[in-house]
């Protein structure tokens, strides 16, 4: 039952006839960033475009094939487009709310009013809509509020936080903390309440949430994929199958499909375990080993796996994986990546400095350099919202 004050508030707030000035309305309308309109093409331009596309595809295929490049004398380790010095502060890609990356023991993150560049950290992840940045710092799990209002220590932990995964809801956070020789998986609420241990012995791999927050997949200490049903509080430990062991996990943005990667292969994970493996980066280039560094969903049906120098687009079909596209990153060693809307990727390259680039997912053409920072040490997990 609303009180008299509440009724008066409703009346006053709805009664105000304050109208926006026409000048402000027009300025806002003029400033709307609109997608370019689609144009109808006639038959002749279509044929010409097809011809150009075939020529271009042939050129790209020739260039993307290491064997072919060796035949025609190109050095695969030499960047075709050497980088000019890029921004020292991490830039947010167009259309995103925020971006973060962990490289070695340093983090970069930019969202709304906050930009953190080169601070010490052990893990970093943006919340949905980038309203908060979860950071593992020393023995603390911290939430930095991106509206500039400060930060909050969510939990003082037993050891370093090595992986963080924010639930889509976005109330809960799964995090992996080092405890002596072991790693423990915890869940905590975004305001620091209700911390609870889920598994005392896991691998230092970022867990992944199912879209409906009802399940969490993670990797056990012996490399098995474990699916924790959070609604019924029970776990299913899946056979490792071809992954030996799993090092990356990614639930699809909708549905039940779970993709996992081992060192050099990617697989659909079903209740029977990891099946339908697709091997990646089987021919290491110039001493770069082929671990799969990143697994990210480009669309609700297409997943991108970055391994060695390969950037592969794969589509699960039942328990099988079909390769849609496979490109080679020639400008450096990809150490992390995340998908963006509009068929784009953010890729972290260690080349030899850490460079974050926004690229077209189908061509790997650079749209923008987002960061130019000291080199990463190993994988560089990327979080984009």
């Amino acid at each position, binding site marked *: 039952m609303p*009180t008299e*004050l*509440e009724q*008066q*508030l*409703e*009346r*006053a*707030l*709805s*009664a*105000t*006839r*304050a*109208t*926006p*000035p026409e000048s*402000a*309305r027009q*300025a*806002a*309308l003029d*400033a*709307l*960033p*609109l*997608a*370019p*309109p*689609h144009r109808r093409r006639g038959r002749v331009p279509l044929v010409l475009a097809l011809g150009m596309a075939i020529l271009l595809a042939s050129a790209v295929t020739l260039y993307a094939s290491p064997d072919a490049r060796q035949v025609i004398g190109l050095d695969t380790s030499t960047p075709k487009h050497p980088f000019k010095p890029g921004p020292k502060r991490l830039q947010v890609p*167009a*259309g*995103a*709310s925020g971006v973060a990356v962990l490289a070695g023991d340093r983090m970069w993150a930019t969202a*709304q*009013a906050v930009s953190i560049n080169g601070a010490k950290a052990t893990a970093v992840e943006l*919340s*949905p*809509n980038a*309203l*908060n940045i979860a950071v593992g710092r020393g023995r603390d799990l911290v939430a930095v509020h991106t*509206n*500039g*209002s400060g930060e909050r220590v969510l939990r003082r932990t037993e050891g370093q936080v090595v992986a963080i995964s924010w639930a889509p809801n*976005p*109330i809960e956070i799964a995090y992996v903390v080092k405890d002596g020789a072991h790693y423990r998986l915890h869940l905590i*609420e*975004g*305001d620091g*309440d209700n911390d609870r241990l889920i598994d005392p012995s896991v691998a230092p791999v970022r867990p992944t949430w199912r879209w409906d927050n009802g399940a969490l997949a993670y990797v056990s200490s012996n490399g098995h994929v474990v699916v924790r049903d959070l609604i019924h509080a029970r776990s299913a430990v899946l056979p490792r199958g071809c992954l030996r062991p799993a090092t990356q996990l990614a639930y699809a943005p909708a549905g039940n499909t779970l993709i996992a990667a081992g060192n050099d292969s990617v697989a659909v994970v079903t209740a029977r375990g990891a099946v339908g493996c697709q091997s990646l980066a089987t021919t290491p280039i110039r001493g770069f080993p082929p671990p799969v560094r990143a697994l990210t969903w480009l669309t609700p049906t297409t997943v991108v796996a970055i391994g060695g120098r390969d950037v592969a687009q794969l589509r699960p079909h039942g328990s099988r994986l079909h390769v849609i596209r496979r490109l080679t990153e020639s400008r450096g060693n990809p150490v992390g990546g995340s998908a963006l*809307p*509009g068929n784009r990727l953010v890729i972290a390259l260690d080349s030899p400095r850490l460079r974050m680039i926004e690229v077209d997912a189908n061509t790997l053409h650079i749209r923008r350099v987002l960061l130019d920072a000291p080199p990463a040490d190993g994988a560089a997990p990327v979080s984009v919202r």
Partner: protein
Amino acid sequence: MVRRASDATLVRKARNGSRDAAGELFGRYWPGAWRAALVLTGRREMADDVAQDAFERAFAALSRFDESRPFGAWLHRIVVNRALDLMRRERRLVGLDQVAEPESPWRDLGAEDRELLDAVATLGAQRRTVVVLRYGLGYSPTEIGELLELPTGTVNSRLARALEDLRRIREEADAHRA
């Protein structure tokens, strides 16, 4: 009778480059978004900036908008965040009355309602935000929690404290008049 296109339809068309659809979507939500920004900031020129900025961000991110969710709620969330962001950036978090417009922006209202909205403008940003979302835009505490990424309990406690503050301000004004 011309059937009004749904927000989801307009969003789809705007994504595909339809200026008409984008214009219609803008027309539907601009006045409400501007008024929300005005009540949140208490200043007309800041409301212009907040609303424009929110629309720019919303349309730039249209490709990421989940069509199964209400467009209005999504936009209001951006408005609220931009308003709070801008106020904080200008260090006007505390005591909006210190930078309030010389003339009340609620001059179209009766004295009692105007006084109440002036009192709302003196609340801290967190409490003012939940008051505007609850009583101005009609969101439930659960929906406000989803918008602001807060537990519903926190929303309820902020609302209760805001109402306490407003009652106290009103009693002080009554006592002053007496």
